[in-house]
């Protein structure tokens, strides 16, 4: 594939490539001699759309791209539409017709309406580029540009993106307090970068981890008195959430890796921390505003305060709960909200998020049995993330699930209308099926760490090589984008104890 600047095209030149606009529309076919009219049309388009470059694809490349969409049709029959009569049958198939390709999706018997449609088609076709695909389905006979445009554009964009991603540099970050509360934070998310982080950058993230855990432990420790939440601690937690948001905007992938960090802190603190990070990440990706993201972070922080009001023996019981015990545990969202009632300045969205995080879309949740859109959108986000994070943790009454199993559990819940499928989808976009931080083995035998998700390909994330095929450590960092690298594939997840000498953030 070549890129030409429009100014390079000269009259009389014989086109050797199929020419496409960067936007994906076909410009000219190969084999044609450029004349003045062509050039005038191209120039005016250049002015209109501000497009300076065109792509030249060889016949094979074009065929490969169109094949991808199942769009490379070789017509095997000719159809003379001008002589068709009402009542005649046209078999389904792909026809060569007036220099274009006509795909008749269903066998049809020609009606008078069809004759009219065909007359319009004959007129249109005069101006079409030879080889364009037209589709005839029910009453519509139209040019099948969209998938072609889509196929070409997506592929061209992908190639461009792959190149920019490698060369990208970190942009300076805007401070969180300079961003208005109603602004969406999605555009401030730094595009994941394929370069190794400095020791300093890793340390900053670890410091945040330690600080947050400290603050959360003070509030969520079983020995603390949850019923008397002081205004100062709320302010500290607000700062923690702001720090988390800033950290995620600066380097979301390294932040995600914190989900894998082991530590011997109590379950509630670990849960609150992890839900915080994921909820902020998902909310940002979904395009929520800074205020909404702050609220979801605060809700994640305080949602389990109510658990501290329950007897610890109940919370840690290793066996199934009796119906009355279950009923008591299910009151904890109410207790959490009560603990926060005396605190001034907490937005109502936060308490609604907390009290409704265990509601389910089909009304089977608790405490109020709300359903569908009765449930606060922030609560819907917390619901999904709570389930995911809980599945990955070992509990007194069951073992931890693998990430694979946890995700399939979420998919099941989405299908049966318990959890919101858009949120589950966004979680997959953000995590991929091999969550960030997972150690994997590639087809080539190399061992790598997943360092960034590709939302267009859950099984082809970006990985960073750690050991070569002979298990020798690499001396420099090497990032591979599995989506854009042919033949590169993950064959298995490597359990961390196969390489106990590795640090959590090796590879980043």
């Amino acid at each position, binding site marked *: 594939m070549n890129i030409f600047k429009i100014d390079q095209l000269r009259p009389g030149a014989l086109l050797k490539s199929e020419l496409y606009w960067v936007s994906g529309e076909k410009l000219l076919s190969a084999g044609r001699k450029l004349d003045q009219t062509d050039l005038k049309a191209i120039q005016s388009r250049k002015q209109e759309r501000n497009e300076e470059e065109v792509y030249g694809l060889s016949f094979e490349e074009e065929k490969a791209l169109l*094949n991808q*969409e*199942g769009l490379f049709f070789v017509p095997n029959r000719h159809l003379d539409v001008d002589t068709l009569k009402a009542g005649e049958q046209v078999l*389904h198939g792909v026809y060569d017709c007036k220099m274009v390709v006509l795909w008749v*999706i269903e066998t049809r018997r020609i009606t008078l309406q069809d004759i009219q449609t065909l007359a319009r088609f004959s007129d249109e076709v005069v101006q079409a580029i030879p080889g364009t695909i037209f589709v005839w389905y029910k009453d519509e006979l139209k040019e099948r540009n969209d998938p072609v445009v889509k196929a070409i554009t997506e592929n061209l964009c992908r190639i461009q993106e792959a190149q920019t991603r490698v060369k990208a540099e970190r942009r300076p970050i805007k401070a969180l307090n300079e961003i208005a509360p109603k602004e969406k934070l999605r555009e401030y998310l730094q595009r994941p970068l394929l370069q190794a982080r400095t020791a300093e950058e890793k340390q900053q993230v670890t410091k945040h981890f330690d600080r947050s855990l400290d603050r959360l432990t003070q509030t969520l420790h079983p020995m603390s008195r949850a019923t008397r939440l002081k205004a100062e601690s709320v302010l500290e937690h607000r700062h923690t959430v702001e720090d988390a948001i800033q950290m995620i905007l600066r380097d979301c992938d390294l932040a995600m890796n914190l989900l894998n960090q082991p530590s011997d802190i109590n379950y509630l603190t670990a849960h609150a921390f992890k839900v915080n990070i994921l909820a902020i990440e998902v909310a940002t990706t979904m395009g929520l505003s800074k205020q909404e993201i702050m609220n979801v972070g605060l809700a994640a922080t305080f949602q389990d305060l109510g658990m501290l009001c329950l007897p610890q023996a109940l919370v840690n019981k290793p066996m199934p709960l009796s119906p009355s015990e279950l009923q008591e545990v299910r009151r904890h969202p109410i207790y959490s909200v009560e603990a926060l009632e005396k605190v001034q300045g907490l937005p109502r969205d936060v308490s609604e998020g907390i009290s409704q995080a265990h509601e389910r879309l089909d009304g089977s949740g608790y405490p109020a049995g709300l359903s569908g859109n009765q449930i606060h959108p922030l609560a819907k986000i917390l619901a999904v993330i709570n389930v995911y994070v809980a599945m990955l943790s070992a509990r007194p009454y069951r073992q931890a699930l693998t990430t694979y199993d946890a995700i*399939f559990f979420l*998919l099941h819940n989405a299908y049966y209308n318990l959890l919101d499928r858009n949120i589950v989808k966004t979680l997959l976009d953000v995590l991929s099926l091999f969550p960030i931080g997972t150690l994997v083995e590639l087809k080539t035998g190399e061992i790598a760490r997943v360092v960034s998700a590709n939302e*267009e390909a*859950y099984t082809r994330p970006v990985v960073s090589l750690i050991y070569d095929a002979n298990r020798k450590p690499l001396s420099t960092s090497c990032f591979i984008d599995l989506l854009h690298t042919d033949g590169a594939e993950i064959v298995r997840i490597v359990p961390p104890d196969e390489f106990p000498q590795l640090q959590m953030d090796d590879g980043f």
Partner: protein
Amino acid sequence: MPKRILVVDDEEDIARAFEEALSKAGYDVTIATDGYDALEKATAGSYDLITMDLRLPKQDGISTVKQIMDMVRLGRMAKPAVVIISGYVDEHKLELSQVPVRHIIPKPVGVEDLCKIVNRVFEENKPDDF
């Protein structure tokens, strides 16, 4: 009970055309339009047959088929019949040979042919009548 079919194709017109034809033929049809959709519905929805386009947003068809097979192997779901309908088959020949797929049909396929193939798949599976 009508057999349940999941049609996976990111082009809505094509998916709808398949759905209509297969519904008329007496099947209970659902559509999925991207890799996430296909993954969610295929693993949770107990379909008897899945028609899969290979190139999909979010996750390609082959990865989705592999995950379905994983779930079957783990005993989480019954094995559906999988029919691949795609123009992209040559490029994936090696991968396709490793997944147990019933039929591979290059696009474009007419809806009558599709119905014939689907009917045949279910015929082949019919238990003996005593």
